[in-house]
């Protein structure tokens, strides 16, 4: 068996298979890394919310820049003035099992407009406008924009004036000053604080499905690596037992590669075990 395995053609194939298996194992490792990152993201949101560590928003996401997944749940700081007149309410949002509204206010910063969920109110009447005359410093978790509701041309959300059904950046862009960041911040703290601030919205829970997806891919890559090596083993074993066709054996001695693709030799030997 060992002598069969040491034939040049099987050694060459072993090198190819080992390279392929190594590459696939690496890909599996990379997917496992991603699975870990994603799995941690829900926990991360909670951790980030609690942690004191913040980064300036403009170091993570510039206005009009595409939102990168790594930026999700970063605890950011920003300073600017509230665009109180442009404040919107987002209906059908839950807090502690009660359905109410998110209060969505643009924060006008030197780097552009930042959509901020300032908090939650039970009824639309409870939402008050923040003081827009002074500069405030805020911290909060950065989130990607929500997907907009797709409507036919001319169709409207049917919501009252001043309400929007999603925190969709494309829709907000039509209403608020440009440039704007392509995500939003869920407010944690504000200094100086507003007297009638709405209730703080807790960090959103990330969907746990993602890590399972990546974990699946990791396992699959490793399985492919194992298959590649088993495939090589099986070929060598068949050769050792003399199960490969005569032409294949002759190839070894004569280094004649052409016969390998000759379909004529394959059909009669197509059933090696019979």
């Amino acid at each position: 068996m060992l002598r069969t395995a040491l034939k040049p053609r099987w050694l060459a194939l072993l090198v190819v298979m080992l390279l392929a298996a190594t590459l696939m194992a690496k890909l599996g490792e990379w997917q496992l890394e991603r699975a870990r990152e994603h799995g941690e993201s829900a926990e991360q949101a909670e951790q980030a919310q609690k942690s004191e560590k913040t980064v300036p928003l403009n170091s993570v996401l510039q206005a009009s820049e595409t939102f990168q997944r790594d930026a999700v749940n970063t605890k950011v700081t920003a300073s600017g003035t509230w665009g109180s007149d442009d404040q919107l309410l987002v209906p059908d949002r839950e807090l502690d099992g009660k359905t109410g509204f998110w209060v969505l206010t643009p924060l006008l910063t030197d780097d552009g407009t930042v959509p901020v969920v300032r908090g939650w109110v039970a009824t639309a009447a409870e939402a008050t406008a923040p003081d827009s005359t002074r500069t405030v410093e805020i911290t909060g978790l950065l989130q990607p924009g929500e997907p907009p509701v797709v409507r036919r041309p001319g169709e409207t959300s049917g919501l009252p004036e001043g309400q929007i059904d999603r925190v969709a950046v494309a829709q907000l862009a039509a209403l608020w000053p440009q440039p704007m960041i392509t995500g939003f911040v869920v407010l944690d703290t504000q200094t100086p604080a507003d007297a009638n601030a709405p209730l703080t919205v807790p960090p959103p829970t990330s969907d746990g499905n993602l890590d399972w997806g990546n974990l699946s891919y990791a396992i699959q890559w490793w399985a492919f690596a194992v298959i590649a090596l088993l495939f090589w083993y099986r070929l060598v074993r068949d050769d050792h037992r003399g199960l490969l066709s005569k032409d294949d054996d002759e190839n070894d001695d004569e280094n004649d590669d052409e016969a390998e693709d000759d379909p004529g030799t394959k059909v009669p030997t197509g059933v090696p075990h019979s």
Partner: protein
Amino acid sequence: MAGPNRGQSLKNALLRYRVLAYATGVFLLLLTLHIVMQGFQMRDTDLSWFSNEGMSAVVPGSGHLIPMVHGWLYLIYVIVAVDLWMRTRLPLGGTILVVLAGTIPVMSFVAERWVTGRVQPMIGAVVDKGAVKA
């Protein structure tokens, strides 16, 4: 191994391969649709391509399920394709194409036709031989 048994096991191997070829093919089409939808959604969401919800917009959760199911189906597809090759020794180059076909939309259906067209006569030959012996 006796002729009829061998014919039967070859038949089973072919059936396994064909079932997986169809299942993988269907899920690959769904996966393609999912990715294309993610591309279209990019225009509205400002998210990077694969951060979009894709098919989840139509069937909640399917955006995660489809890639995962296709991944597992493809793994089994590769195993049954290699298994079938072990039993039939179809041309190696063609078999490699058959394995790769599971990653290219529609091609696994073409591969299934090629494999079935070649393996059916083998099954016929084995069964005939067995019948003569009996």
